[in-house]
Structure formats: structure tokens, C-alpha cells
């Protein structure tokens, strides 16, 4: 099993890991990956990956607007919103 680059994982997952938590997470992840590593021993050559229990094509619908306008209702759920827009920290200097 390759070494875990925890900083890189935390960066990809956008989860801040404090130094005190990192050690515990690393140990847990190593245990979990040791468990799932048992998959490697199985010969799956020629097996089609199964991404879904339903071997059906996705249903299509008319290309028509079906959602009502709920902008105000949905924006009211945001931690910060103003003038019909979501507010986030400044991105462009």
C-alpha cells in the first residue's frame, strides 16, 4: 500500500486538518485502506465495472422548464446573500 499524502487529500477534499487531528486521521485511513486493499488480490480481468444496480438507460424528459422560480426561498437559506446573490469572500483583487 502506498504512503498516504494526507495534506494533499485534505486539500482536494477542502477539509482543514489540524496537526493534532492529522495523526489520528492518518492511523484511521491506514486501517481502512488496509481493509479495502484486499480487493487487489481478486482477478477481475474481463469484468465490466458495475456503476449502478439498474442496467437501464437514463430516462429522458422533454427539454422544458419545469422548476418554478424559487430564487427568494432558496437564497433565504444561504449564510449570506444580498440583492439576489450569494455572498462569498472577495475572489478577485
Amino acid at each position, binding site marked *: 500500500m502506498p504512503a498516504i499524502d494526507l495534506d494533499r487529500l485534505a486539500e482536494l477534499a477542502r477539509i482543514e486538518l489540524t496537526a493534532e487531528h492529522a495523526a489520528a*486521521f492518518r492511523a484511521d485511513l491506514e486501517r481502512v485502506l488496509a481493509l479495502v*486493499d484486499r480487493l487487489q488480490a481478486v482477478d477481475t480481468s474481463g469484468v465490466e465495472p458495475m*456503476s449502478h444496480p439498474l442496467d437501464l438507460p437514463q430516462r429522458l424528459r422533454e427539454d422544458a422548464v419545469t422548476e418554478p422560480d424559487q430564487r427568494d426561498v432558496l437564497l433565504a437559506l444561504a449564510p449570506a446573500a444580498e440583492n439576489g446573490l450569494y455572498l462569498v469572500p472577495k475572489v478577485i483583487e
Partner: protein
Amino acid sequence: MSTERLLASSLRELATALAEGRTRAEALAEAALERAQALQERLNAFITLTPERAREAARAADEHRRAGNISLLSGIPIAHKDLFCTKGVRTTAASRMLAEFVPPYDAFVVERLAQAGAVSLGKTNLDEFAMGSANEHSHFGPCRNPWDTDRIAGGSSGGSAAAVAAGIVPVATGTDTGGSVRQPAAMCGVTGIKPSYGRVSRYGIIAYASSLDQAGVIARSAEDCALALTAIEGFDPRDSTSLERPVEDHAAALAAADGRLDGLRLGLPREFFAVEGLDADVRRAVEEAARTYEALGARLVEVSLPRAELAIPAYYVIAPAEASSNLARYDGVRYGYRAPAYTDLDDMYRKTRAQGFGEEVKRRILVGTYVLSHGYYDAYYLQAQKLRRLIAEDYARAFASCDLLLAPTAPTTAWRLGEKGQDPVQEYLQDIYTIGANLAGLPALSHPCGFDAAGLPIGCQLIGPYLAETRLLLAAHVFQQKTDWHRRLPPL
């Protein structure tokens, strides 16, 4: 019969009592709320109780009945796992991330049960984002087992199972991604069914692992599960995986049963009974259940699921991978928690997610991120999907020689709170018997079949071929006509 005693009876009996005017929806709602509140400190089965809404719904149910407009579920107290969105009622997923989230819409299941006149008392406890097998990973504290409050209720739908077992409601909703309906049902001594993937709409259920998630119900009998399942199944265009098929009247098939299961072939997967860690009392009770089925006319056949043990590693790659993708939406921008202090947008994401998610959720997101990341995708994620097909094919092969599979629901009875807290893998290994049905999309149920030496309930699991819910429910119903394990009540 006192109203409280009545609450410990079946949905069918409650519906009859309402129809005959022996009680009213309002009286039932009051008694159920009183019991829920009285047991809340000991069980922590609920995250949110909604007494005013319940009273209002009960009054409406009584009015509809007076107007002659009644459905079987009208006036029946129920509870929803706090993973189903409820319009105007906070829906937390047992997470700090959604602790204040009030959805602007109802989940399909919630909508259907409300239309049927069922009276929801509120939202039940669960493992955060349905990730767990104990209901210990909840931002609102663990749910406790009504049979022994020092023990886990099982998970993730622990609150729903505990509420049913404790005689608060006759039926509650749950979701099952790797056993989250069946395992807590087993731990709490009640009956729970996970339908086939696609039978019940996932619309409005907070997503964990979308190719595995399925809604189900927990009740005190297979008959009550049948009644509740009919009420929540059916096509919903808002879920792209919802099956376009007519609603089935499962309970009607049960009513036509003659108390026999002649000709039913029950397969016992030999690998399941060879699992290291299968508790001796659980094995004895499940084997005894198999003999009861045999006495009812079923024929026992030995079958093989050669890759049974590999279901755990396959699941613990696929589910975290899907979870890491599904939970990417919690960014502190559109809804949910936002960290109070941060330097820039990226820092806001990182701190929001670090503070908003609990430890187990973070573990699964990180595992999912790992197995999906460049260089490991083929070795883990793709390999797990190939295993998933082989496992599904094993089940299909087993069903060539039997009609249903019989197995334990979990290798042990309920463990003590905190007992497995140190090592996540110990908890994952508990899912050995339930995960296969999720990977293959099959229906499965758990019903009580005895008690261990400590007096804790044991669950027997039946797994069926795709869309064989009626067959599953019928078998369990005939079993329950012959036995009384499902009628035992916890010493609360």
C-alpha cells in the same frame, strides 16, 4: 385498552381502532407525543419533535374521517428519519453542517405519507449523513437501545428503530445504504425492509452514496411494513432512478396467505454461516428460524456466495467515493453551516467543512477522495466496481436454486456504547451480511427471531431477487403468525 398500550400494537390494529371509533387521531397523537417526550432523555430517539404540527395533522385526520374520507394510514402516528427533507421542519442529517437547515420542500416519501393522513411526530436520530452502524456518530448524541440503554440502537436509522421498539410509533421511515434499515431493526427487535433499488423515490433524501441509497420502513411486523411500503413506493419523475411500475398492494398478498410456505426454497449461504465473529447465540437463533421456516413448508437449500467477504472492501471503496462527491456541495455558500472566521474563499471552504462535519464523515470523505484520486482510481474505484458486478452475479447464481436467501442480519447483538469507537474498521466489519443487497440492488428485510443470553434481540434477514418484496414480506408474515418474537416489548 389504554391509548398508550394501544400505541404498542400494530398499525393494522391501530387503524381498526380508529375506524371503529375506539380512539381518535388526536388522542393517539397526544399519547405518542407524551411517550416520545417521556423517553427522550433515556433514548434520544428524536432530534426534533414537532408537537404542534402533529396535533394539527391529527385534527385534520379526525375531520377527514368524519367526512368519510379515510385511508388506512390516516391518523397513524409515524416518525421520519432526519435524512428526509421536511418542508418547514429542520432537517439535520444529524450533522452540525445542517443543524439549522429548514428545507423548502418535502421528500417524496414524506409527501406520500402526509397525503395518506399519517401524523408525523418529528425527526429521528441517525448517524451523521447516515454514515455508521451504531447511531453513535450523531451531532445530537447517540441514540440508545430500548432493550438496554447502555447499548447502541444500531445504525444508521437508530432513532426510527428505537422509536418503533419503544412503542412510540408503530412505523417509522429509514434509509438503507449498507444495512441502515435492517441492522438497527435487528438490534432493536423490530422488522425493517429495504426495497429494491429504484422502488422508492430518493427525491428529498439527503444523499450519501447514490447508487446504493434506498428508502425503507421499520415497523413491528412484516404486515405493517407491507402496508407502509405500499404507501411510499411508486414512480416519481423527480428521481431519475425511480422505476416506472405500478404500486403493488403487498398487504393484500399477505392477507391471502394460508399460513404455509410450501414449496418455498430458502437458500442458506454457507459463507455467511462460516464468518469469523458470528456470535454463537445469533447463529443458534437464525438456524432455529430456518427450522421454523422448514416446519412451515419451506425447503432449506445450501447455496454459495463465494465473494461474500469481499463485499465489505468493495462497499468501503464505492460508498466513500460517492459520498466524497455528494458531500462536495457543503461549501458554506448556498445553505448550511459557514465557519465564523476565515481569510479567503478557499479558507472558508476548508474551515466550514472541518467544523461542520464530524469525524466519521471526514474519514469517509478522505477515503473517497483517496480512491478517486489520480493514480489510485483504477486500483481501487474501478476494481471495486468490477467486484460489485461479480458479487451481484453471485447473488443471481444463488437465486437460480432458491427463492429467498436466509442469513443473520448482523454477526452480533447490540454492543455497548463506545465499545467500537476506537477503530472504524471494527464497525465496518459488522456490515458483512447487509452490504451485498445494496451492492446488487436487491430487496431485503430483517425480522426478530430470538434473544441472546443477555436478553438482546436477534435479527433474521431474508434477501430476495430484484422486485421480490411481496415474497419477502409474505415469508416473514407467515413466520410471524407462527412465532411471537416480534410481539415482545422492551422493559422500559
